[in-house]
């Protein structure tokens, strides 16, 4: 018998099994009884913002876009494209890179172990040559151009750029044509060795599994890997000033209706993981009460033709950023901006939030959350995200329930500063 911990979450009727391998790799199995599909993610805490770091006593600055480039190259082995191997074994594989992580994943209804071995070997054993690196630049360059042709993506990216002076979050995940042209096979080996160490990675399996057998299978594989030192990574984060870099910015793209995004910046503080998670939930409630479709403010803006159903908003915070974004497609860019600022100021001064609305918001969020748990993809990806943020995905119902009206009010008041925002507009060509 393999030793592992199991935990049953009564409120959501889910069971999670955990085992930490001898080399430090954490593995979680999430039961999805009756599902045909088995879904696996293998994730490293390494994303587009990890460009400046120290390991084994040496400091490195690597080209922008390298985490994403590495992700592409991991599929390309001496024996050919691993995508095709997954397909031969009946699985479909994919990967993605975000600001703080790179995930490799597959789903399958057959040959589970063959595919799992394929995934582990693909991620664990690097193979890079300068010819293969050169060839990849062409494909990634087309990918960069595809994003450049997406006005929504451009708007988001330009807003981050306008808000942040030094934070690497403003760098495009795929980098630029110039930066990726600097990438060499040596860079890729360095980043792989540093960030793909077992103790910097997590594997999540969601589906209908024989738990003991699966853990033993992974353990046998992991024990055969060559031993490596404990990972030793120090990331350098640049100092970020409080004020936004640019208050206003406009760019011309081929669009019919102007799109505007407002980015309200406040800096990350020393809040611990729990507090951050509470603040995140409270801000979700607050923003939805103020700007959601049920809100009288939204109704008014909608009737006056200042917003339409493209209006959306979000609060985001992590080690690098803390901000609230609001975006809409509107011909009334200036009125929209003035109204948003006016509404935030009014809400801060008046007694806007209510217990009744908060209770209803909590129920709604709980329902959304339960609905999402139907999806093994959601479960595996979000479990990983929350784990990296120091939070348990299945602890969310309790956390949601415990948010108080006072927290909603306080966090809303302290997390949006109407004097510190960037306004970015995408307009059609004149």
């Amino acid at each position, binding site marked *: 018998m393999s030793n592992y911990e199991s935990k049953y979450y009564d409120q959501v009727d889910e069971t999670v099994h955990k085992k930490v391998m001898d080399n430090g790799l954490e593995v979680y199995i999430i039961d999805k009884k009756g599902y*045909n599909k088995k879904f696996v993610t293998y994730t490293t805490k390494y994303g587009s913002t990890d460009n400046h770091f120290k390991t084994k006593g040496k400091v490195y600055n690597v080209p922008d876009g390298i985490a994403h480039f590495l992700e592409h190259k991991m599929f390309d082995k001496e024996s050919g494209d691993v995508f095709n191997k997954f397909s031969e074994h009946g699985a479909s594989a994919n990967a993605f890179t975000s600001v703080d992580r790179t995930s490799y994943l597959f789903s399958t209804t057959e040959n589970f172990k063959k595919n799992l071995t394929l995934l582990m070997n693909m991620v664990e054993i690097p193979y890079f040559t300068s010819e293969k690196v050169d060839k990849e630049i062409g494909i990634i360059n087309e990918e960069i151009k595809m994003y450049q042709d997406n006005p929504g993506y451009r708007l988001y990216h330009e807003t981050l750029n306008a808000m942040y002076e030094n934070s690497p979050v403003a760098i495009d995940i795929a980098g630029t044509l110039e930066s990726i042209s600097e990438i060499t096979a040596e860079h890729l080996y360095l980043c792989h060795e540093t960030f793909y160490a077992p103790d910097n990675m997590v594997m999540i399996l969601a589906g209908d599994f024989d738990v003991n057998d699966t853990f033993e299978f992974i353990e046998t594989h992991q024990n055969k890997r060559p031993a490596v030192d404990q990972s030793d990574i120090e990331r350098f984060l640049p100092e970020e000033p409080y004020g936004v870099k640019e208050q206003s910015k406009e760019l011309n793209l081929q669009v019919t*209706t102007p799109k505007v995004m407002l980015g309200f910046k406040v800096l990350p503080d020393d809040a611990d993981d729990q507090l951050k998670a509470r603040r995140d939930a409270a801000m979700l409630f607050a923003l939805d009460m103020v700007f959601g*479709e049920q809100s009288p403010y939204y109704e008014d803006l909608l009737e006056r033709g200042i917003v339409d159903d493209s209006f959306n908003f979000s609060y985001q915070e992590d080690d690098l950023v803390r901000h609230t974004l609001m975006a809409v497609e509107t011909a009334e860019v200036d009125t929209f901006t003035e109204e948003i600022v006016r509404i935030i100021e009014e809400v801060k001064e008046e007694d806007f939030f209510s217990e009744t609305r908060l209770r209803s918001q909590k*129920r709604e969020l709980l329902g959304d959350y339960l*609905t999402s748990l*139907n999806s093994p993809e959601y479960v595996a990806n979000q479990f990983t995200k929350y784990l990296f943020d120091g939070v348990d995905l299945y602890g969310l119902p309790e956390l949601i329930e415990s948010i108080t009206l006072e927290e909603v009010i306080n966090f809303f008041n302290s997390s949006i500063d109407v004097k510190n925002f960037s306004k970015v507009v995408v307009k059609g060509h004149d």
Partner: protein
Amino acid sequence: MHNVEKRIINNIPIVKIYTEKFKTVVVSVYFRTPLTAKGATTRSLLSRMMVKRTSTYPTNAKLLEYLAEHYGAHLTSNVVKKGSDHLLKVSIEFVNDKFILEDIDMLGDITKLLKDVLHTPFLYDEEDQLNFDREKRLLINRLKSMKDNYAQRAFEELLSTMFEDEAYRHLSFGDIDTLEKLTLEDVKCAHQQMMDQDDMSILVAGKVDDKVFDALSELHERSEQATYPYKGYPIIEPKEVKYKTTHLQIEQAKANLGFRVLYSESKDPMTLNVFNQIFGGSSSSFLFTNIREKMSLAYSIHSQVDVKNGYMFVLAGVDNNNVEVFKDAVLRELKRVVDGDFEESFLEEIKRNMLSSRMESMDKPRGLISLSYNRLLKELSTTKETKEWTEVLQSITKDDVINLAKKIKLDTVFTLKGGNENV
């Protein structure tokens, strides 16, 4: 894993798909009618109006509040093209009773609400003019902003070039010109017709017992069953290839190719499905491995098919200077299939993967509903005993694929290009 039971109550088929693996229950009501430009646009607007307010919850805020109280039940509507038809679907997804602490009769409340959603348009009067105007404005905005997605825009233009005089050129969500002219009366008429004459079906998936039939039978009543066969458009052989290019200030050309398949055998639609996976519908396909990975010509490239009608589309983002090279490369890959330049083992792999993704779609309540709905439609389109999907798939041979590839004819090449026409 799940079992399916169909009953016809009040002349409307109700299908129950019982499964315990989900945390939610989904109810979908389908309305099916032949596709026309005005019909699609009117029904698209109607579908949006229906889920914004009801006679019991007369504002969007009140309706949303009610849904939130019911654990954020998701009420949605959508419209799609299918075969030669236009489908309007209203769905609601809500959490299982076992996760609810309060004393709420979920199924009872949700069915009452759904009935209200379906019947409210009968009561539209002058007071609804404002709602109508607002939804019309919002839909016009949406249709306009869809054009800012250049890949979508290129695909729309491919359709209107390829299907110049055919109904298939109409989009499921309608067009701005038709929308501008619509009146509230048009919407009421479309609704009346839909409730009286459309082929209507109700499907439910989740952990529900037989009481669900009683509850759902309350939704609507008909004096006789309204139904008609489900079929595609007649097959048309393209005469000569149509070329069209439009210029916009964009970084990357969106190159789209439209093909017609001259179906002649009953298993051709399934063979087209298999062909598509070999050709450009999967990451191990010819287009992906050769044009993307080997030639580095495109990052996004795939083929998609409308199997009912026998249409295939190849869609890609390529460098502005490489459009011709790209088109030739696609035709060369097609020729490879015609020449039988692929292994039997690859065909078997593709078939296994198709079976696997079908199994995977059963892991979603909406996937189960959609498979059951397809089965319902199949029963309508033929009186003969139909073969199981899996059985037909397994019967496809390499020769079938080669013979089908020979029946695929290029019809239209549409390119949305960066830069100026004169350059």
